[in-house]
């Protein structure tokens, strides 16, 4: 009988440490499926962030490097410029990418580094216990915005896909979620497109996932999925943000 559902080869056979209802695990799976489908596991180098996904290297079957907080795009640049035929992807949270690593992501994107970034936006600092993130929604309560994010003093959340889409080095950007089977299918298509963009040498590619953090949001897994659909995706609309770079 033909096996229709199993563990992708690019994933290791170990249980992850992610909390119940956290979509980090689904995102790992989608990346691994795409790596398998493209047949590039042997030439893929992943870069894990500082954040809940720091141990991503335990879950993938390809070579992996752990970067310091926010620097994954710089580390990826060093690797890709050394091994231009490899497939290099960064896996980064919102604190990692949009706060401490804001400079590194912007410059890797504008240089058109031929890397793929999987950006996991859960609107909070998961690993350190639920502090405010650069993507925390206005009014959202966190341990460092206990009365809800006040944009007057804490500033406004960053829309990463929109921000980066203005840069000419960017060849593909999309924002997706994993809140329903239909959304997962779309998300996988986006991840695949991002990897293909890199492999075809077109430039920088990024997929932003709106992702759950039920533990730190104080919600059940189902409530968390619903919060993405009802709240997060209003501030962060899903879809394709690739702009054709202007010429001249």
């Amino acid at each position, binding site marked *: 009988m033909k096996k229709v559902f199993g563990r992708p080869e690019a994933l290791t056979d170990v249980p992850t440490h992610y909390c119940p209802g956290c979509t980090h695990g689904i995102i790992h799976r989608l990346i691994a499926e795409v790596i398998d489908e493209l047949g590039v*596991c*042997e*030439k*893929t*180098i992943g*870069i*894990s962030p500082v954040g809940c996904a*720091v*141990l991503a*290297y335990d879950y*993938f*079957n*390809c*070579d*992996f*490097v*752990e*970067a*310091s907080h926010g*620097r994954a795009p*710089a*580390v*990826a*640049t*060093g*690797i*890709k*410029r*050394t*091994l231009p035929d*490899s497939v290099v992807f960064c896996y980064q949270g919102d604190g990692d990418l949009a706060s401490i690593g804001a*400079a*590194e992501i*912007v*410059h890797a994107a504008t240089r058109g580094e031929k890397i793929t970034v999987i950006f996991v936006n859960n609107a909070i600092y998961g690993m350190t216990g639920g502090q405010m993130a650069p993507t925390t929604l206005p009014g959202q309560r966190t341990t460092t915005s206990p009365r809800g994010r006040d944009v007057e003093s804490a500033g406004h959340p960053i829309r990463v896909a929109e921000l980066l889409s203005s840069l000419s080095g960017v060849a593909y950007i999309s924002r997706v979620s994993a809140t329903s089977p239909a959304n997962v299918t779309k998300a996988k298509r986006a991840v695949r497109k991002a990897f293909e963009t890199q492999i075809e040498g077109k430039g920088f590619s990024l997929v932003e996932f709106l992702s759950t953090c039920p533990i730190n949001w104080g919600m059940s897994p189902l409530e968390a999925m619903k919060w993405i659909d009802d709240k997060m995706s209003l501030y962060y609309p899903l879809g394709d943000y690739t702009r054709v770079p202007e010429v001249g």
Partner: protein
Amino acid sequence: MGEKVLMKGNEAIAEAAILAGCRHFFGYPITPQNEIPEYMSRRMPEVGGVFLQAESEVAGSNMVYGAACAGARVMTTSSSPGISLMQEAISYMAGAELPCVLVNIVRGGPGLGGIQGSQADYFQATKGGGHGDYRLIVLAPASVQELMDLTITAFDLADMYRIPVMILGDAILGQMMEPVIPGRRGKADLPPKTWATVGAKMRPKNVITSLSLDPAKLEQHNFDLGKKYNKIADEQVRYKTYMTDDAETLLVAYGTCARISQAAVDMARERGLRVGLFRPVSLWPFPYEALQLAAEESLRVLTVEMSLGQMVEDVRLAILGSKPVRFYGRTGGMTPTPREVLEEIERIVEEGI
């Protein structure tokens, strides 16, 4: 042996890296070392290498981290404020045991400081700089030829021990022009980089990380690093001596200050004073034993630095109170003259210490 060519110190470092087989350079402009990235931006494309101007020293040093992971011979260069920004990546590279070459063309500090030569980054280079229990190999050239030769050596040492190696120069050495004989890539028998993350083809995956959440494992990793550092301390001590055999007054100085001190030794000898110079070339590992031996017959030690007194702490550790250790320094970008050093020698000889 090649023909002698006239080169600026900074250019000698850049060309030495090329000669050593370095094909990846990441850096960010800062005076007084701009000749290095400028030279690299010209030269790397000629040899099929990569030059990339990073958006900051934070990014540049993390690009070095990435290239080192991918098995490249890689270098970055900067000056004091930029080296401060690199401490994160340096600590990570020390933890993950990645080879690379770092160059600090030191300028006066603290803060933005100035752009003239200084030796005030000795502590940062030799005592840590970043967080955690780690060491760098730190080499201190004192001429353009040595900038060339020690840069080539630095690449071999980095690969041999899987460790970041720092060349500690200063603005004067970087800007100085001297004739040099171009060096050659060393013939060191270097271990293959089987640990590099170049794609898991026909082998289990490689992972490069400095994370270890289990304290017992992290302690073991630190013990292993410690063993490596002890081995380096046994094998890689470098120093030079000048007229130390009968010296009653022993000067200790490195880099630019060693040149100045050597001139002061000559002037003192002309006046019949028995003065010699001990010059540490490896600042880490510091030549404690060799210095102790060299100082055995002397009456007093004078350390000369372009700082408020940093290396002098290691000199005191070497001498262990067996004789007086005096310090003479200029700082903030000021350079002592040989005459000033001579006057200091005469003062302490007269005082009878």
